[in-house]
C-alpha cells in the first residue's frame, strides 16, 4: 500500500473547511480520478500528497511514513518521489523543452551523465521528439502539457499527481494527454488526477473518488457509479 489518509480534515486560516474527515487508501500502481465540482476540495486534497498543505486534523502516510509529522528538511525527499503536473503547465518560458526537463533533474542534484540519458528518454516517452530545442511559447497547449508530464517523470517518481492537467485544453487534445497518462500508469507509476471533466472519466473504467464540500461521497469504479 502506497498512501493512506486517516480522518483528514483541513480548515484554512480563513475558516473554510476544505476537507472534512477524509479516509483513503491507495495501492501501488492504481489510477485514480478525483472528481467533484469547483470548490469541492480536489486541489486541497491533491496538495496533501506532497505536503504543500498540512492537515488540520488526521494523519497521512506515504510508503508507511507519516508526512504530517515530517520535518521540513525531509520534505524535498518526499517530493522527489512525486511528479506533479499542473493545470497551467508551469514551464519556464526562457528555457527550451530539454532545459525545462533537465532543470527538474538539476535542482534535485542529479548528475550530468544521468541527465543526458534521461532527458531524451522522457521526451521520446511523451512524443515530443524533434521539439527539444523549442521554447514553450513555440508549442501548442497540448505539447506544453506533454513537456509538463515529461518533467514530472524525469526523476522517476513513484507517483504522478495531476491537478486538472487538461483544464486548459480542448477535448481532443485532452484525450491525447489522458492516453499518455494511462500509458505511464501501465508502466507502473501510480497516477492520481483531479478533474471535473466527466466525459474524460466516464470512458476510462478507473477508480473514481467523488468529493463534495470536502467529503468523499463515493469511491468506486466508473462503471458502477455512472451506469
Amino acid at each position, binding site marked *: 500500500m502506497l498512501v493512506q489518509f486517516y480522518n483528514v480534515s483541513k480548515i484554512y486560516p480563513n475558516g473554510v473547511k476544505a476537507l472534512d474527515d477524509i479516509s483513503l487508501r491507495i495501492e501501488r500502481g492504481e489510477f485514480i480520478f478525483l472528481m467533484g465540482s469547483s470548490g469541492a476540495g480536489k486541489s486541497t486534497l491533491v496538495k496533501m500528497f*506532497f505536503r*504543500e498543505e498540512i492537515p488540520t486534523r488526521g494523519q497521512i502516510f506515504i510508503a508507511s511514513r507519516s508526512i504530517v509529522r515530517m520535518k*521540513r*528538511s525531509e*520534505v*524535498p*525527499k*518526499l*517530493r*522527489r518521489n*512525486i511528479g*506533479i503536473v499542473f493545470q497551467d503547465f*508551469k514551464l*519556464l518560458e526562457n528555457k527550451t523543452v530539454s532545459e525545462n526537463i533537465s532543470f*527538474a533533474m*538539476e*535542482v*534535485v*542534484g542529479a*548528475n550530468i551523465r544521468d541527465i543526458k540519458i534521461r532527458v531524451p528518454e522522457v521526451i521520446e516517452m511523451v512524443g515530443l521528439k524533434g521539439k527539444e530545442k523549442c521554447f514553450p511559447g513555440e508549442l501548442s497547449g497540448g505539447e506544453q502539457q506533454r513537456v509538463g508530464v515529461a*518533467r514530472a517523470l524525469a*526523476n522517476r517518481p513513484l507517483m504522478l499527481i495531476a491537478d486538472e492537467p487538461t483544464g486548459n485544453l480542448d477535448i481532443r487534445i485532452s484525450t491525447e494527454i489522458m492516453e499518455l497518462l494511462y500509458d505511464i500508469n501501465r508502466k507502473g507509476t501510480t497516477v492520481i488526477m483531479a478533474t471535473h471533466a466527466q466525459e474524460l472519466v466516464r470512458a476510462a473504467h478507473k477508480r473514481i473518488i467523488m468529493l463534495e464540500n470536502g467529503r468523499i461521497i463515493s469511491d468506486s469504479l466508473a462503471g458502477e457509479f455512472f451506469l
Partner: protein
Amino acid sequence: MIIKNMLYFIREALNSLMRNRLLSFATISTVSISILILGIAVLMTMNAGSFMNRLESDVEIIAFLEKNLSSSQIRDAGEEIEKMDGVKQLTFVSKKEALHRLQENFGGKEYNLGTTIGENPLPNSYEIKAADPHNVADIAKKVEKVHGVYKVNYGQGVVEKLFNITKWIRVISVIFIVLVSLGAVLLIATTIRLAIFARRKEIKLMQLIGATDWFIRWPFFIEGILLGSLGALVAIVLLLLGYDSLISKTDSIYFFSLLSDPIILSKIYISLFLTGSVLGVLGTYISLNRFLDV
C-alpha cells in the same frame, strides 16, 4: 552535493547579476564607497597610532640649569635627577655643546652664530629620557624642584592633543562607516529581493520538484557575496593606488613616514575584502528571510 552544484549556483548568480545590471552596478559602487571610507579610516588611525608611538618615545625632558652653578653643583643636580624613579637616561649638554647644535641646525656654514651673538647666552642643561613616556609629566614636575634647575621643557600636551585628534577621527569614521555600511547592506538586500522576485515562479517550482532549501538559497548568497566582494575589490584597488602614491610623496618628509609594512598592509586589505563579503552575506540574509519562504 554543494561542491558538485557550485557551477550551477555560480551560473545562476551571474545570470541574476546581469539581469539587473544597473542595480548591480549601483550596489557594487555603494559597497566600494563604504569599504573605501572604512579603509581610509583604518589606515589613518593605524598611521596616527604609529606616529604617536614614535613621538612618545622621542619625548625628552630638558632641564635648563641656572647660570652660575659650580661644576660640583651641576654634578649634584645630575645625581639627584638620575636617582628619580622612571628616569632611564641622563645626558649633560654643556652650553658650548648647545651652541654647537644651534650652529648646526640654523647657521650652517654661512653664518657663524658664535661671532654674531657674541658671548654664548645658552644655559647648561640635562636631557632626561623617561623609561615610560607616560611618566614624562610627573618626572618633569619633580625635576623642576631640583636645586639649580630654573626651567624644565618637555612635549607638554602634544601627545594628549594628538590622542584627542585620533580619538575624534575614530569616532567620526565609525559613525560614517556604520551609516554607509548600512546603506550598502540595504542596497544588497534590495538587489537580492529583486533577484528573488524575478525568479519567484522558478523558486516555487523548484520547491515543488523537491529542491532543498539550501539549493535554492545558494545562488542568492553567491550573488550577494559577489556584490560585496566586487565592491570591496574596487575599493581596495583605489586604496592601493592612492596609498602608494601618498607613500612616495611623503617619504622625503622625515617625521611623516607612513606605515608601509607589506604584511600589515596586506592584512588590512584582506580584512577589507572579507568585510565586503560579509556585507554581501548580511544583505542576502535579510532578503532571504523576508521574501523567500525557504
